[in-house]
């Protein structure tokens, strides 16, 4: 720390008083850091908007696609795991739902 006149006895005494009297009291965080993180996350929401729209559309459409695929499948294939995995509609629904979950998770982790 710089001083203005260290040779002066009075000056040294005054600086000691100032050091002791002003000090450096630490302020408790009290949720402030969390508040800043939330504000930062809110700022970056537009960057995630496309993912979120895709994700929520996927979440909504996945069960519909799966139900449609199951309803339209021949009776003999129902319950057959291989047949379900071969169905492109079901796999598309699963992939989109997974993308939705990933986007939502990423957003949630930023908001924590």
């Amino acid at each position: 720390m710089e001083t203005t006149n260290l040779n002066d006895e009075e000056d040294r005494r005054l600086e000691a008083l100032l050091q002791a009297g002003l000090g450096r009291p630490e302020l408790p965080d009290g949720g402030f850091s969390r508040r800043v993180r939330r504000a930062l996350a809110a700022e970056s929401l537009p960057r995630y908007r496309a993912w979120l729209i895709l994700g929520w559309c996927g979440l909504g459409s996945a069960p519909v696609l799966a139900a449609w695929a199951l309803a339209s499948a021949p009776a003999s294939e129902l319950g057959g795991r291989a047949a379900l995995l071969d169905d492109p509609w079901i796999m598309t629904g699963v992939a989109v739902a997974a993308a939705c979950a990933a986007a939502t998770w990423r957003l949630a982790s930023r908001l924590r």
Partner: protein
Amino acid sequence: MESELIRRFVRDGDPRAFGQLVELHQSAVRRFLRHLTRGNHAAADDLAQDTFLQAYRGGSRFRGDARFETWLLGIAYNHFRNWSRSRDAAPVAAANRPEAATPATHRLSDLQRDLAEAMANLSAEEQLALNLVFQFGLTHAEIAATLHWPLGTVKTHLARGKGRLGELLALWKPRT
């Protein structure tokens, strides 16, 4: 530790590193703004939030010439000046009320109380310069950079402030 966080934030824009830097420096930035806003805690915290948001956006502009905390205090002071202009308030703090700088639960010592009373006799600029030296540990050059004052002005305010305080506290002794 801190230098690694700064490197991750500035080079990679790592939000988690920045979050840790907020935790490290929130106390200094909020205390500085509480002093400037004369103990208006709500306004100080709003300004502190704006300060950190701007720091996050402009992280690439941090060159490392100054300490990270000094850089943050400079941003905080700019936000305070804009805020005080919008409120038509004085550009720097005019009072150094002890309750403004310390938590309500913290009992003030005789020295803190007497020093606060003596500081109230100084100009706002003298108070600010003295606080930045003795409370925040800034050098004269750092104060000049933070407040956008010429170095000579910083030295003048410090010398005048200390001279006046020297007179006021010449006979100071702890009360018994």
